């Protein structure tokens, strides 16, 4: 009960219990694999984007897009030309999907989805956590492996990942998978949403890395070695 927990000494003391097991090897592997593959997908995607840097049927109207006709710098593009970008993109998508499915499969099989999936019951805890960050409460609310705001962020990014894959297939096969393309509002709309997932991933990546270093650097080591030796003990 994060909200009703009695106040404890601020801020949480460093764990004295020594290292605790935090991440299964499959989680660590798919985490880093996903990172590298997403970078590869984004950079090859920017190469593909260069061929038609807007969204909408040829006559217009065009979707609102701050990057209309933007030529992204060469260092940010993978593939060298359109065919190269396409071939990278369509090669990296398979290991990325495999990594995603393995990771989600592990979450379900191990039951760890419970500490990650944001559910309506987490709303109260999320508000308390937000209060703590806004200095409206002094003590750090008790939490499990992740606090409710982390759960919200990770649940959100998994949903965005699924949307990126689905909108990607909607663009890849707009005739054979026309039902999927229609779900996204048509071919150009699917391209549009696919492109937005790029900026959500990029934003998430930046915030994620900043928070790791500012709030809990020990979590970086935990994602490499699997063992956590930081100041946010799990109350599970």
């Amino acid at each position: 009960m994060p909200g009703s927990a009695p106040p404890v000494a601020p801020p949480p003391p460093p764990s004295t219990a020594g290292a605790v097991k935090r991440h299964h090897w499959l989680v660590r592997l798919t985490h880093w694999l996903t990172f590298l593959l997403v970078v590869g997908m984004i950079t090859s995607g920017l190469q593909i984007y260069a061929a038609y840097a807007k969204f909408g049927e040829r006559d217009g109207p065009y979707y609102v897009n701050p990057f209309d006709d933007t030529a992204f710098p060469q260092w940010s593009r993978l593939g060298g030309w359109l065919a190269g970008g396409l071939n990278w993109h369509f090669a990296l998508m398979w290991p990325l999907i495999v990594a995603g499915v393995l990771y989600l499969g592990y979450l379900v099989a191990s039951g760890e989805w419970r500490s990650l999936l944001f559910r309506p019951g987490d709303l109260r805890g999320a508000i308390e956590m937000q209060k703590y960050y806004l200095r409206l409460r002094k003590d750090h609310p008790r939490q499990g492996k992740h606090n409710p705001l982390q759960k919200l962020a990770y649940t959100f990014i998994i949903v965005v990942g699924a949307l990126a894959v689905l909108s990607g297939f909607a663009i890849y096969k707009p005739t054979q998978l026309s039902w999927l393309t229609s779900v996204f509002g048509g071919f150009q709309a699917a391209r549009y949403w696919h492109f937005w997932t790029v900026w959500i991933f990029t934003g998430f990546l930046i915030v994620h890395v900043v928070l790791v270093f500012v709030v809990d650097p020990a979590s970086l080591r935990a994602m490499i070695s699997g063992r956590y030796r930081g100041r946010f003990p799990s109350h599970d």
Partner: protein
Amino acid sequence: MTDRRAFLRLLAGGGTASLVAACGWDGGNAVRPLLLDVSRLNDWVGEKILFSPRRLAREYPITERTARLPSYFISREMPLLQNPNSWRLQVGGLVRRPLALSLDDLQTLPRTTYTVKHHCVEGWSAIATWHGVPVSAIAERCELLPQARYVRFDSFDSGYSNGWDLASAMHPQTMLAYGMNDNPLPPTHGAPLRLYSPTKLGYKMTKYLVSVTFTAERPGGYWEDQGYPWFAGV
């Protein structure tokens, strides 16, 4: 443990991919062939799993036509026939009855017409109406030999050509188009005759046709030989 090792290999591959993004790299001599292998695998998925010989692409009302459908050719200048009246479409290869068809001959064959969305590999799309003869109607008349598995479409646009699998060519919406948007096919779009299909990317639809050849071996193509996907189904 095998899983783990396989993943470390993948990780190494994906990692290299990301880290070399900095130089607009196409994979170099070491990785490019690997990417082309995966592209062939994707072709297989597109052809054997996703493509259906019966599923039809959506048609649109003519009011949704795009005013200006972009066009291109690879020759320095727009390919034009010196003498349009002597033009014939040569149909041959693995057939019992090779044909030489004039534009008039083609217009007496079964006519099909549809308004569909064009998908360019670059990412743009546009809607147009096409009028022509189904490729399957031509195949019926020239009587294919059982060894025929592929079709090569050749043009008079500086040797531009495309190779197709037979199933895609026989799809009911694959046509040799002599008309566009209620008019004769304009020279910008491949007059007098071009290949059209809403189930493939634009670069697979050979313009300025001179011949249709049924083959046993998989023919290459202008862009396909340079690294673009061969099947290119959408």
